[in-house]
């Protein structure tokens, strides 16, 4: 559905996207992850025909973004990271306006707009002025807007930023529904743990380069290949750290307030001896739990490694 090949984007001498290649399969949800300034927005804007690449190519449903931008625009729904709304326009009229821009006949776009307002949970706001909506509502409205012409590929640039936790869950449900409708979705986010549940595959980008990409499960296994254990202590943080450091299977230790998070190279059955050692040393443990390797840590690791290179 989306094929990026050897994409380069330079601003003067600064390289924002550096020989990036990736593919998003039809019907997949692809999570696009990277630290600030990694080049996510730049890549997405190129795919949305809003920016010309320096070299390389991006194809959407077989159409090159440079050669046939209009055809590409009919295939994609783009939701930028920052966007504004017109004053003096009601939610329904807002959708109608963009529907008209896609050349959809009046009756049809009214029907589509009603349906989409329902989908994003704004049906009761249909006659409210857009600039009176809250930021999260505007974002949902913008998502509805990007769906007006029934695009095959959705390009969502940090759609969850600015949403409260509840709205995020709702967004996730909407995206699931869209996936079920057969849409392909390219989504960027800083909230990695959310992406891990939702995405079929992810790509981690840094300094304009794709560092890791592929199936979510594979990435978790290959990159971490070990367990993460959370230990909560009442006291004696330093002593616990010293003991943990002596353990051969403990790979790294993060400290966060009264919580320790450790990487453990052993298997599940190697965990209880670890706990036994700690308890035997009188470390006041109040909680000891295994967590699934989360994407955030994968991300931290990959990007750290990159920086060291």
């Amino acid at each position: 559905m989306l094929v990026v090949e050897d994409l380069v984007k330079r601003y003067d001498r600064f390289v924002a996207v550096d020989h990036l290649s990736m593919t998003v399969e039809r019907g997949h949800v692809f999570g696009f992850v990277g630290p600030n300034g990694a080049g996510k927005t730049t890549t997405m804007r190129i795919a949305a025909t809003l920016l010309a690449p320096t070299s390389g190519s991006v194809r959407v449903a077989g159409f090159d973004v440079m050669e046939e931008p209009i055809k590409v625009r009919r295939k994609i729904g783009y939701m930028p990271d920052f966007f504004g709304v017109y004053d003096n326009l009601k939610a329904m009229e807002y959708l109608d306006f963009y529907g008209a821009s896609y050349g959809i006949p009046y009756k049809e776009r009214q029907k589509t707009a009603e349906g989409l307002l329902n989908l994003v949970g704004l049906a009761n706001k249909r006659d409210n002025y857009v600039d009176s909506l809250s930021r999260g509502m505007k974002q949902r409205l913008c998502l509805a807007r990007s769906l007006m012409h029934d695009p095959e590929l959705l390009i969502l640039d940090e759609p969850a930023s600015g949403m409260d936790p509840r709205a995020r869950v709702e967004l996730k449900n909407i995206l699931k529904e869209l996936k079920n409708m057969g849409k392909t979705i390219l989504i960027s986010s800083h909230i990695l743990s959310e992406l891990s549940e939702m995405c079929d595959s992810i790509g981690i980008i840094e300094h304009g380069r794709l560092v890791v990409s592929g199936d979510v499960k594979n990435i978790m296994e290959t990159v971490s290949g070990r367990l993460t254990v959370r230990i909560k202590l009442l006291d004696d943080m330093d002593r616990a750290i010293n003991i943990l450091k002596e353990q051969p299977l403990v790979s790294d230790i993060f400290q966060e307030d009264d919580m320790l998070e450790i990487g453990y190279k052993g298997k599940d059955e190697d965990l209880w001896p670890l706990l036994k050692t700690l308890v035997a040393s009188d470390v006041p443990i109040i909680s000891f739990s295994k967590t699934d390797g989360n994407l955030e840590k994968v991300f931290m690791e990959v990007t750290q490694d990159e920086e060291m290179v």
Partner: protein
Amino acid sequence: MKRWFNNPVLAGELKIRMRSWRTVLMIMGYLAIMLAIAYLFLETSMQTLSRYGSVNISRDLGLQLYTILAVIQFMLIIILIPAQTAGSISGEREKQTLDLLLCTPLSSLAIVLGKMLSSMSFVLLLTIASIPLFSLVFLFGGIAPMDIITLFVFYLITAFAVGSIGIFCSVLFKKTVTATVAAYIVIFALGIITLLLGAYMTSEFAGKNPHFSGVYIAFPFYLNPAIGLFDLLGQQSGGTGGVGLTILGVSSAMYNANVAMTGGLSWMAQKLGVWGTNSVVISVIAIILLLISAWVVKPVRVLKTHSSKRHSADASVN
């Protein structure tokens, strides 16, 4: 063609504009200024009329009132249009709505034209709202309804030309404030420079051809809609309204046919008159400016050299 007037940008823009209080206030302020001036004029000249009332004086007063209203309206349009257009694209950029518009299949020319047409319809609205005031002139005689229609058409052409400069600035500058200031500077500088340059060329010409008895109109004059306006008003008042192109030393000589004309575009001026030529010249420049603006707004610009195949396929379908 149909798609131009079925332009979603125009429709949306009109909807937003007509809803805002600013538009209402502007129309009211506009009419108030026009009305105040008409009132002042009538107040001072009615006394003259009642004292020496005769058909001729009445006709002259009518022409004077018409000229004053026409010039004031012209000035108001020149002052309002840059403010209307200079924010059109930069405002979308500032509001961060431009990207959303650009990633629809609408061409950048359609977007620019939509903005242009919406500003034009605002001018149209203002001029239509001023019709009742203008019809005061009919009380005195001397001016026909057709004259007013012609004048309004000239206003629209002027608005189009001035507006295209506003849009061009709006495309070039990121901020509306900068674009607006730039538009005003460009428009007033152009107004003055064309006048000075034209006057200079005229005196040069007169110095070189002391025995020339025809009319010489320097090309820069055709770039200035004020020249067109004065020519039009002079023509409508039969060269006796006190205006016309007396500033150029041409005045009523122009309207006696069979005058030898020289200067740039004199072949056109001979057919269309000075204001007609002026309209054509500024329209052509406006169209060029709009095309350039559309080109600049376009996010992805490709020189289509390798797609001639597709073009010919399109042609065969038509």
